[in-house]
């Protein structure tokens, strides 16, 4: 079996090592496939499906998790592909607050998605979790990309503080029995904040600055009080 495969993407031929994803092969050709949940340093799970492309199958294929195959013919920007992407974006816009997700807002504009398409939509709502001195969790802005759960677990930190509440549409990120992060195995490494694409996780300092709080006050509000030995 050859170590490489040759396929065509949007009519252009390319030879890549076996197991290369369609997403990576397209990027080598300078073809941009949009992504939302995908992060180059994390396990790709094919969640958002915005990277779906036509690849000769019965259904479209998520480019971030589909390996290139010999003779595959891929269309990354056909009308059915754009149709699916547009609808996913329209549905997502009716789900959570995307005001601080500039990449997604740019995609909505690019694909002509109508953010007001679904007037019946019940939004996913959640209280803002302000339970530690380091960062805020506002799941009204969370799209369930799983990045924070993954970095907290096997993809980076092995802290296992985060998992999920509920299932289906009302899935949110949660801790054991809703405990505040100070009472969990969270080590406040900040990696979840670093990979959050929508502003759902935000350093407390940044949030307070945005609210116009004086930097000196922020220092007093967020500093760790040392526990002195008696």
């Amino acid at each position: 079996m050859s170590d490489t495969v040759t396929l065509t993407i949007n009519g252009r031929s390319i030879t890549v090592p076996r197991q290369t994803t369609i997403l990576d092969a397209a990027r080598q050709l300078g073809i941009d496939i949009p992504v939302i949940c995908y992060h180059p340093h994390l396990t790709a799970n094919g969640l958002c499906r915005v990277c779906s492309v036509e690849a000769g199958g019965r259904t479209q294929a998520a480019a971030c998790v589909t390996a290139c195959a010999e003779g595959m013919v891929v269309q990354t920007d056909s009308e059915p592909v754009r149709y699916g992407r547009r609808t996913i974006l329209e549905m997502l816009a009716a789900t959570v607050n995307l005001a601080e997700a500039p990449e997604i807002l740019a995609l909505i504009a690019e694909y002509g998605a109508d953010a007001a398409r679904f007037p019946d939509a019940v939004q996913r709502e959640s209280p803002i979790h302000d339970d530690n001195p380091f960062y805020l969790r506002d799941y009204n802005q969370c799209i369930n990309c799983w990045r924070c759960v993954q970095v907290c677990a096997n993809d980076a930190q092995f802290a296992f503080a985060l998992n999920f509440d509920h299932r289906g549409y009302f899935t949110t990120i949660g801790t054991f029995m809703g405990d505040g992060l100070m009472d969990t195995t969270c080590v406040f490494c900040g990696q979840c904040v670093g990979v959050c694409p929508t502003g759902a996780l935000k350093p407390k300092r940044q949030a307070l600055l945005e609210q116009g709080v004086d930097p000196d006050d922020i220092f007093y509000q967020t500093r760790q009080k040392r526990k002195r030995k008696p």
Partner: protein
Amino acid sequence: MEATSTHAIDLTLLESVLVRYYGRSRSALLPLLHEAQAIYGWLPREVQEAVSRTLRVPLADVHGVVEFYAMFYNEPTARRVVRVCEDIACTLRGADAVAQAIEAELGLQPGETSADGRVTYERVPCLGMCEHAPNGLNGTRLAGDLTATAVPDFLAGVHPEPEPKIYGTPLLKLGRIGKMDPLSFKDYLAHDGYVGLRRVMQYTPEQIIQIMESSAILGRGGAMFPIGLKWKFTRGAPGTPAEKHIVANADESEPGTFKDRAILEGDPYSLIEAMSMAAYVVGAENGWIFVRGEYPRAYERLCHAVQRAQEEGYLGRNMLGRQGFHFNIEVRLGAGAYICGEETALFEAIEGKRGFPRIKPPFPTTNGLFQQPTAINNVETLVAALTVARIGVDEWLRFGTDESAGTKWFCLSGHIQRPGLYELPFGVSIRELIQMGGGVRPGKHIQAVLIGGAAGAFIGPEQLDAPLTYEGARQHGFPIGSGVVMVLDETADMRRILYKLSHFFAHESCGKCFPCQIGTQRQMEILQRISHDGGPRPGDRAALMDIGFTMTQTSLCGLGQTAASAIMSAIQLWPELVG
């Protein structure tokens, strides 16, 4: 998610359970949670912490699992849960009136627990007893053919337990049900038990694979994958027998489907024999039966049957007197998640995780349970293979058509005089099946028939002569699916039925991929308004078709890919429903 204990939790009650789980891995999580919940009725914080320590599973992960499965509770819940089905087959036969009578009798709304903490009441998705609609569960006691007047008996636990209703000819696969004691191993042997397995054990595994390939058995859970190929691939995958698995998918949850329950409850040894044959062919030592949490009687009988087969030397090491033939079976109980009928989500459930389907490829034949080679088959498929072993492939091929060989179980329900499980050769038309079932009530006429399940398609009365074969289904644009044939006469409120279907999928979407997670919800919101919350508006049809296209084309697994199919088929047949 805040759950506050109203009284102290006595953890000593749990100790005798925990000692049996020390040293076991995460894959014991669901069984341990089931056992713990049987003690407390729910899973208080202290209990989850003890489970976490015992199996060394992170607390947050235990929590995520409890949250995922509908039958695990992290809020105070009674030991006895009364569940009444709210899905379409039961709705067509008066489930609303029954539910209202239960609510009046108990003084509870869905999701509530009585003040004395003794009973919790729920409306739940299809319970797989559609031939006895409307139906429910009182704790672990099954109840069918409920009426408002039968509710006191139902709640008192004295309403008769329903038995599977079997019809059709030839009963190649269902013949023993009702004619033997499903608990008696001796009775099974007296009814041609182990004739099939002993017969094929004269052949090599390769020869049996050839027999199965010529029998043309396709997966009968709905995916239609050829069993011969699946066994061949799994046999050929790298790995020792100790590293390979046979899994029976008994997570039958497709609304309108009640076929596998008949075997699980009425002829459990046949599934064990069929899996043993699969193990012999594939070269696998590990067997798993994953049965849905809503089938308590099936679970109990399967556990009993596995134990009896072990005692009789028909499971275990060197079984059936054959040196080197080792195979054992563990029965696993689901906990209320339709998605776990998806094969990779089922693996995740056995592994003690949330039932999220995996990305395919890689496929189960190489990367299945515990990432090891796995042959996972639907119950009916396994029993069909065993039937071929018992009667021979020539006899099998006398039934059905060239492309659709043998017999198939059809789940006939809804507005039909004689609902039940019909075993028939492929090729019978939908009209003939409905006639066998006594037709609709006198003076009524057929409005629509749902074929293949909630993930199937509607047809109108003009298509009733379509044959029930794979090729006929393809030609007429409906799937055979799990064999559902649900009849709706003109009294059915189609808008309400479509809403019910959409509600089912929104409830059962796992939440992994965006198109299904969000699409099932958006679909339900629109159909809810159309059905009973304001009526249709311009643009609804286009919106539903856009959602349907997107879910079908871009969802990660089969649930999302089919969550709009029945609804879109109805919109195409009867556009006035949504506009």
